[in-house]
């Protein structure tokens, strides 16, 4: 469809449907989509009023026409969508008014907040979008989204399965965030990158409170911007919205000045509002806009503008790290998450994610790791792989605007990777090398950088999304190259104006006291124009150098961050010295001193083997805390602190074994899961943590787990012990079903159950072998099954 009308002038949309229907008798909580069958005349008459009032685009009555929302209505998506689009088209017949397919949220929360996988959300939206195009909709409006991830699933579904233009609006709180924490720049730059045709804000607030947010939105996108505010806020005593048509329009006019060009109304508005709006905007033209062009990556919650030095953490990478390789091979995603969390705490701005290792299926693993990290770490990610399939799979499930590391000057690589970068709106790192290797001169590298930039521009990737890696070579091997690299950094910055990346640590390879060389090179490179150093943020001295540079460059105004970084940094004299004379490993575990427990364990391994450290020291220490807990002398937080200290000891043991290539210490495997229908899992996670720190190996199936999944896992891995958790009386039946199903096995596992509503009586009635009132009792049950 010709999209010129979206760009050329002011476009008037329609107003509310839901609240208008409520005014005309639909009870609150009723399903408006069913009116497509029961009262099409009412819908047609409302559309005609909107068209008469000046609407150029009207929304088909399909806001809740997705499969999850229609469940239980006896209507299919196809039926509802085709009926709804037909009604709107009848109303628009004989005019040039366009009909848009309205797609609202699915009403189920996506992972990680809910249990709906991204791929399923995509499939639901695909069904609606395809039905809409078949029914003859002119365009698609994705509306009222509060989760950027859901908006992405919907947008991809429309783009990949229809040829329709698509408008996307989200709902923000006055705080400038959506319910799920999405920010305006994250929303704008992610959706533009993914190929939306216009974006905007709808619902939640009136035009007065929406105006500042719309202004921010206009600065963060080149696309036409849509405003569909509510008629103010509803009065809780009456349910009525507090703004009349004239006030609504007056409050909306400043948005025109800010650059908004597409206007409509959401809850509480009616044809009267649209009439007033059409009148006020008649003959007006959109205000020219100033786009804030900037290097940018983000997660939904964390926008990262590249207007200074931003640290890319390098630790999520198996190269040369045996423990990390083991975690990858064992699918131990928690270990990888831990690497990410540590770097966040150390002050990284972006995390590089690399899972390439022999024996690892990158195309399957990279998206899993991206989801895992994004479930708990809000930093933007740089996806690091040479495998185009892995990059596409990971970019697809990434929530926000990612970076891709990397392409180089080789034409085949550019042809393979740049279309994927463009499709998902990512930034891309270009390495200054090609099929002929690394040029030895700065000029040679800059020539390749220029070639990469041109190729990116040809693919429609803007210059601010192209980052150049000038390549750090090891100074002990090629001493003259350090200066060439610095020169290339300066040239790329000054001549091309692009972001510059360097993997800094490589400089000092093979030299003693590496950190001195690395740090000095880093400082010189930042002075030359390096903006994106890839470093280990856990090295304090290196991060200190970045902090100091930001003071000297003026980026850290008033040295505020630098001062905060060192506030209270003086070591406390009373802190017990690690490994000192008085503190024993047992004390460290009892007091939950993680760092000390780890150090003392390393110390102990000099005189003791791994197994005896576990059996003779770790477990007795944990038992003592457990006994105090039983007796009411210690409480849950202390029990868990001790478990964490024990975990630190286990990490030391695992690393030691991985280093030697030996078999891990494992005392028995158990399955643990929160049953089907139950989505809160902190209790289950507590039990798992404590059991793992007794050396039992958990197969954690997560939450909302169907009985069949548990059965299959037990059967395939021949697991002798299963722990089930349920939080609500409504999910006890699922627990019972799971137990019954497990009992059909020829060799059924021992089953223990727990959770807020479970009692010993229920447990017995459901056929469980044991009731565990807490994590501590779970350990006792495991001992019975596996022997002490």
């Amino acid at each position, binding site marked *: 469809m010709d999209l010129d009308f979206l760009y050329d002038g002011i476009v008037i949309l329609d107003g509310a449907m839901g609240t208008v229907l409520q005014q005309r008798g639909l*009870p*609150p*909580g*009723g399903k408006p989509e069913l009116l497509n069958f029961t009262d099409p005349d009412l819908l047609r008459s409302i559309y005609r009023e909107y068209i008469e009032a000046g609407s150029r685009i009207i929304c088909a009555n399909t806001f809740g026409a997705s499969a999850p929302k229609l469940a239980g209505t006896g209507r299919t998506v196809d039926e509802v969508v085709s009926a709804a689009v037909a009604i709107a088209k009848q109303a628009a017949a004989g005019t040039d008014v366009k009909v848009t397919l309205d797609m609202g*949220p699915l*009403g*189920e*929360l996506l992972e*990680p*907040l*809910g249990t709906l996988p991204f791929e399923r959300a995509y499939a639901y939206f695909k069904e609606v979008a395809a039905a809409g195009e078949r029914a003859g909709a002119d365009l698609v409006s994705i509306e*009222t989204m*509060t*989760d950027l991830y859901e908006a992405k699933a919907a947008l991809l579904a429309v783009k990949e399965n229809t040829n329709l233009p698509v408008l996307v609006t989200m*709902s923000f*709180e006055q705080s400038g965030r959506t*319910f*799920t*924490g999405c920010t305006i720049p994250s929303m704008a730059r992610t959706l533009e990158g993914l190929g939306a045709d216009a974006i905007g804000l709808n*619902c*939640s607030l009136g035009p007065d409170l929406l105006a500042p947010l719309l202004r921010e939105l206009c600065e963060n996108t080149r696309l036409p911007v849509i405003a569909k505010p509510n008629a103010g806020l509803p009065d*809780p*005593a*009456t*349910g009525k919205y507090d703004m009349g048509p004239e006030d609504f329009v007056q409050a909306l006019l400043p948005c025109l000045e800010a650059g908004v060009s597409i206007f409509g109304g959401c809850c509480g508005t009616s044809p009267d509002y649209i009439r007033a709006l059409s009148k006020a905007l008649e003959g007006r033209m959109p205000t020219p806009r100033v786009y804030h062009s900037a290097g940018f990556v983000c997660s939904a919650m964390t926008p990262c503008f590249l207007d200074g030095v931003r640290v890319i953490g390098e630790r999520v990478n198996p190269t040369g790290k045996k423990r990390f390789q083991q975690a990858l091979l064992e699918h131990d995603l*928690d270990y990888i*998450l*831990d690497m990410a*969390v540590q770097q966040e705490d150390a002050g990284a701005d972006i995390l590089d994610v690399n899972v390439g290792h022999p024996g690892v299926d990158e195309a399957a693993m990279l998206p899993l790791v991206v989801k895992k990290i994004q479930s*708990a*770490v*809000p930093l933007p990610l740089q996806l690091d792989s040479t495998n185009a399939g892995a990059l596409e799979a990971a970019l697809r499930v990434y929530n926000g605007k990612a970076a891709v590391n990397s392409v180089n000057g080789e034409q085949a690589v550019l042809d393979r990777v740049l279309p994927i970068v463009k499709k998902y709106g990512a930034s891309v790192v270009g390495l200054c090398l090609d099929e002929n290797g690394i040029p030895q001169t700065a000029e040679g590298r800059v020539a390749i950088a220029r070639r990469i930039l041109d190729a990116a521009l040809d693919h429609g990737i803007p210059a601010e999304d192209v980052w150049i890696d000038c390549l750090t070579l090891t100074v002990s091997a090629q001493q003259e190259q350090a200066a060439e690299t610095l020169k290339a950094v300066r040239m790329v910055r000054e001549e091309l104006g692009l972001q510059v990346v360097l993997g800094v640590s490589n400089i000092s390879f093979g030299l003693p006291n590496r950190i001195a060389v690395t740090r000095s090179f880093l400082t010189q490179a930042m002075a030359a124009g390096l903006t994106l150093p890839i470093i280990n943020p856990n090295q304090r001295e290196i991060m200190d150098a970045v902090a100091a540079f930001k003071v000297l460059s003026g980026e850290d105004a008033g040295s505020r961050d630098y001062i905060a970084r060192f506030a209270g940094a003086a070591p406390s004299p009373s802190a017990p010295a690690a490994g000192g004379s008085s503190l024993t490993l047992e004390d460290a575990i009892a*007091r*939950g001193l993680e760092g000390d427990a780890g150090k003392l364990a390393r110390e102990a391994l000099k005189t003791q083997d791994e197994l005896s450290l576990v059996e003779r020291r770790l477990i007795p220490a944990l038992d003592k805390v457990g006994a105090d807990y039983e007796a*009411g002398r210690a*409480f*849950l*937080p*202390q029990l*868990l*602190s001790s*478990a*964490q200290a024990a975990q630190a000891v286990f990490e030391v043991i695992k690393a030691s074994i991985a280093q030697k290539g030996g078999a891990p210490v494992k005392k028995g495997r158990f399955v643990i899961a929160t049953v089907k*229908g*139950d*989505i*809160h899992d*902190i209790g289950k*996670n*507590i039990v798992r*943590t404590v059991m793992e720190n007794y050396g039992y190996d958990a197969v954690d199936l997560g939450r909302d787990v169907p009985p069949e999944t548990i059965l299959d896992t037990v059967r395939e891995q021949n697991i002798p012990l299963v722990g089930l958790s349920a939080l*609500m*009386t*409504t*999910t006890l039946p*699922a627990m019972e079903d799971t137990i019954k199903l497990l009992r059909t096995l020829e060799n059924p596992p021992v089953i223990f159950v727990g959770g*807020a*509503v*479970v*009692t010993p009586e229920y447990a017995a009635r459901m056929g469980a072998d044991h009731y565990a009132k807490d994590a501590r009792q779970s350990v006792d049950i495991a001992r019975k099954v596996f022997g002490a």
Partner: protein
Amino acid sequence: MKLDLSEPLRYLGVRGEPDPALSTQLSAAADRLTRSVTPRWLWRVFPVLHRDEGVVLEGAGLALPGGMARKMLAECSQAVLLACTLGAGFEALLRAEQARGMARAALLDACGSAWVEAGCDAAEEEIAARFPDLHLTDRFSPGYGDLPLELQKDICAVLDASRRLGVQVTDSLLMNPSKSVTAVIGLAHHPQPARIRGCGFCSLRETCQYRKEGKTCGS
């Protein structure tokens, strides 16, 4: 709004004076929570009709079956439906804390439970201020007494809580985000007695450690 630290301690089963290390960690968790998460709420008033089949909220298309609602709203001509949540922000914070360690996560979780209740208290103050001539009953929730848990879904639908608050109710009647509460509060012309204090109204009454020891959490 203030978070009373004795509440999370009670949820964690800590009896007596907590040791200083625990107190410090708890304050840190409470601090992290209250700095980054604010309870949000939504309420609406409906006229109450007293019918044979139970209490009906006019205009909401909603009946509150059972003796609990009948007794609580006996003297009320109107009732408030309330939903309050810590939102997805809390869930994100909790996932991040779990990655840093379950001890920190358990403290944060307990603080979250107290914080959403503090939100409900603040909402009650807002309601009381809006109706200075009326008296509020205790707030009571689906799952208390004989008020069916299923009402959770209806209350959220009536308040449009999914759209306006970001709160969903799953098919198994769990609220998501987890720290979310729905409640009913009656509005009457006479002062209302406290009716629902005590174990009879607590959904944990069958598993409560205090009760097993013949005590109550209030003592």
